[in-house]
């Protein structure tokens, strides 16, 4: 059943220059099958777990995919956001569009579907080769989305994007290989065996750091984040939405799958400095992106900075999970909820930029309401999805001896508020 992620890939194979504008429905339909399967697995036991697990000893170094319950919310969010953003993308390229249809439909369609395959695949992969394949597929295919409009700024952003991506992949390759070597088993280890290998290795800290940086490039980690405000806004708006909403989470997923979080058989004292670094960099990202972001003059750039800020909060949570193994399980659950909530709302806010241009009259009011709700969610006002996600984490944090960290995290909402106000101002000022 997991092979449904290849629906997008197969779709990409059938696209030609001639039929591209008749295959636009793929943009919307491709993620739906896996989304439905995920949803069914979440709400009931109807699907036997054996149907959600694929193994093959002769593919790669032993292929192993499964739908992991703890990542299911993220997978559902990813599929939904891609499909929803696909509606906007299909409209951009439709020959019946009111405005002029965008050029290079075939190229966009292929890149979109390949990126989607990568983004879905990395959420189900358990073996290192598949995971690395999907991660790389997503990264490199997304280049085509970033530069699609081929404006000078898009091309420049694309260059920075690809250079940072290659640097990230290099850290990742080094990290994955050395983590796998540290496991020291006869067979090639699966991703979930890596954390144990890292804590038992003498070089655990350097291995974990390589992985932290390698995935951090994608996750907008402070220090290696600067490609993100360039690349996310220049892509066509639907692509910006999936870049900032869904694909940015791939870095987070990488962290969650490979870093030694939670109680392992050996104390993870050797990675304590990394935990502190993650907390610190998380704070810098959460607050710093807010300060820098409010000075930018484009709505989409403000949103990109907001993504860095939100990912900063997730990085901080990662640091706490690494630092306090006993609370890790709860923090992890909070992170997945937080990431899913951010994906949906950030996706909506990005799509709002396109929506806003197209809508008029009553439509405009609807847009305003939806975007206001999304922004309030992101800020985390009471009764919002943001408040729910953050409260999960704060409940854990309250019991830990973390000093001012609780306050620092809570008031991160101020940065978000400032960014959302700036976004609203920029969006509504252009009339």
């Amino acid at each position: 059943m997991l092979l449904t992620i290849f629906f997008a890939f197969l779709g990409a194979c059938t696209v030609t220059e001639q039929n591209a504008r008749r295959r636009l429905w793929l943009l919307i339909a491709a993620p739906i099958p896996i989304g439905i399967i995920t949803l069914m697995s979440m709400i009931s036991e109807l699907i036997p777990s054996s149907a959600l697990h694929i193994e093959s000893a002769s593919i790669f170094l032993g292929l192993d995919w499964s739908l992991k319950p703890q990542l299911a919310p993220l997978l559902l969010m990813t599929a939904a956001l891609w499909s929803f953003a696909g509606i906007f993308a299909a409209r951009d390229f439709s020959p019946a569009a009111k405005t002029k249809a965008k050029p290079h439909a075939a190229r966009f369609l292929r890149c979109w579907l390949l990126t989607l395959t990568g983004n879905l695949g990395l959420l189900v992969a358990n073996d290192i080769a598949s995971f690395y394949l999907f991660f790389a597929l997503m990264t490199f295919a997304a280049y085509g989305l970033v530069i699609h409009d081929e404006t000078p700024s898009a091309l420049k952003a694309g260059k920075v994007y690809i250079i940072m991506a290659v640097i990230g992949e290099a850290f990742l390759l080094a990290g994955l290989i050395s983590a796998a070597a540290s496991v020291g088993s006869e067979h090639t280890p699966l991703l979930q065996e890596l954390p144990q290998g890292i804590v038992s290795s003498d070089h655990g800290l350097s291995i974990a750091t390589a992985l932290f940086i390698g995935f951090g490039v994608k996750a907008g980690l402070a220090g290696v984040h600067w490609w993100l405000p360039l690349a996310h806004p220049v892509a066509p708006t639907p692509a910006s939405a999936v870049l900032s909403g869904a694909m940015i989470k791939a870095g987070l997923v990488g962290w969650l799958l490979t870093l030694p979080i939670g109680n392992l058989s050996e104390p993870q004292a050797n990675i304590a400095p990394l935990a502190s670094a993650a907390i610190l960099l998380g704070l810098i990202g959460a607050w710093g992106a807010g300060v820098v972001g409010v000075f930018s003059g484009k709505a989409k750039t403000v949103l990109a900075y907001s993504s860095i800020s939100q990912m900063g909060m997730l990085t901080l949570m990662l640091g706490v999970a690494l630092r306090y193994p006993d609370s890790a399980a709860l923090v992890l659950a909070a992170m997945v909820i937080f990431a899913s909530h951010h994906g949906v709302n950030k996706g909506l806010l990005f799509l709002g930029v396109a929506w806003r241009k197209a809508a008029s009259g009553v439509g405009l009011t609807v847009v305003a309401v939806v975007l206001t709700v999304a922004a309030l969610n992101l800020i985390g006002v009471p009764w919002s999805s943001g408040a729910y996600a953050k409260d999960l984490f704060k409940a854990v944090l309250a019991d830990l001896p973390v000093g001012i960290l609780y306050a620092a995290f809570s008031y991160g909402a101020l940065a978000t508020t400032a960014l959302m106000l700036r976004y609203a101002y920029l969006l509504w000022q252009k009339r």
Partner: protein
Amino acid sequence: MNAWLPVAVLGTSLIASLIIFLVPDAKQRLRSTLNITAALVKIGLVAWMVFGIYQQELFETRFTLVPGIDFVLRADSLSMLFAGLSSVLWLFTTIYAIGYLEGSPHRSRFFGFFSLCVASTMGISLAGNLFTFLIFFEMLTLSTYPLVVHRGTQASLTAGRTYLRYTLGGGAMLLLGVVLLYSYAGPQVGEFAETGTLRAATSLDPRTLAAIFVVLIIGVGVKAAFVPFHGWLPVAMVAPAPVSALLHAVAVVKAGAFGIIRIVYNVYGIEFSAQIGVLLPLGILAAITIIWGSMQALRQMELKKRLAYSTVSQVSYIALGVALFGPIGSIGGLVHLLHQGIMKVTLFFAAGNYAETLGIHRIDELDGVGKRMPGTSLAFTIGALGMIGLPPTAGFISKWYLGIGALEAGMAWALGVLVLSSALNAAYFLPILYRLWFKPVRGAWPDEQIPAARFETDPWLLFPTLATMAFTIAAGLLASHPWSPLTWATLISVREYLP
């Protein structure tokens, strides 16, 4: 029967070569039939031997030339790795060459030497001792020279001279090394044997043996294009594309790399080599070559030159794998012998297609070619991703094993070299992919020879390219399949390390 099989394998190309020399140039169909039949027969024979070796059968032909010096052809698991690669790629290169040289003069001469070259390669892979190896190693040099200078232009004659100067020099060093080894340790150490033959010879001075090792490695290192003996390789790219493919992927550089494997594993033995301390210098030499080759490749604007420097870099992965003491590193080096072959052949086929179809030789002429030649460009893309080391291509498997092997051998710096090399490969291949797929066409092609009809180019050129592309993916995707290159390399490695 078993005694004659190695000779038969060698004979198929040798006889084919002699007959082809006699075929008049105009008899295209006869020559092509001969060529392809010989290639298919050889693949069949090699497959037979591979199957036999799985079941521990022995295939050996031996006769004594002078007392103490035997001429030996023997099929062991290692020789099958190389023979399998050459016989399969020979088929595709031949098909490609038939399409490539259609209508050009001196085709019988070309295909005659082409077959002779493959016969030498077969001889190298089946050679059972250093002496036999040396004979075929020299024969390879002489049979490739006419191919390099085939076009007869001033540039190709100059390149041919450089080629001869380097390779004959290397051959002389190898000869010197063999003579020194035979006279110092006796001819019996020249016999190739699993885990090596020198291990037992404890009475010999390790320093002398290490010195002879250096001479031998320089001898084969010229063909393997180690820095600073690599100068001939970028120059020799003036040859026609199928020849470049042969030089880079199947025959010459591979013969050098294979020689290193033979000397380290089957003469000195991996454990003895580690004892006398020659593995680390070999590893460092390989590392320098890997990085230096990539840096030079970055600076080339001519497509085939960039590929040539990329070969300099990639072939040294094999030597690096050999230098990593431990079974995993060995697997990485051995499997890369095959993987580099199929990936590089794909890239050279694609480069040849661009040149033949559109007259494109330079990288900045490739703008927008992806739309005009999608099949070739897809093949080039897969080959390039393989060189970078991304799954699902074969290159990822090589890099994975080499990386783990480096850590297990306690040589973490080698992992750094591999990662840096990946980044450099990305730096010189990704811009090409960008031009192929994203840049708009600049105008008319430099020199369009083959118009787009049913296929983007001559099917004789297109299908071999797509076939090797499929191998590149299959070798990575099905790496753990019982009949994959990786499984075979694992078998060899296990036999080398088990006492």
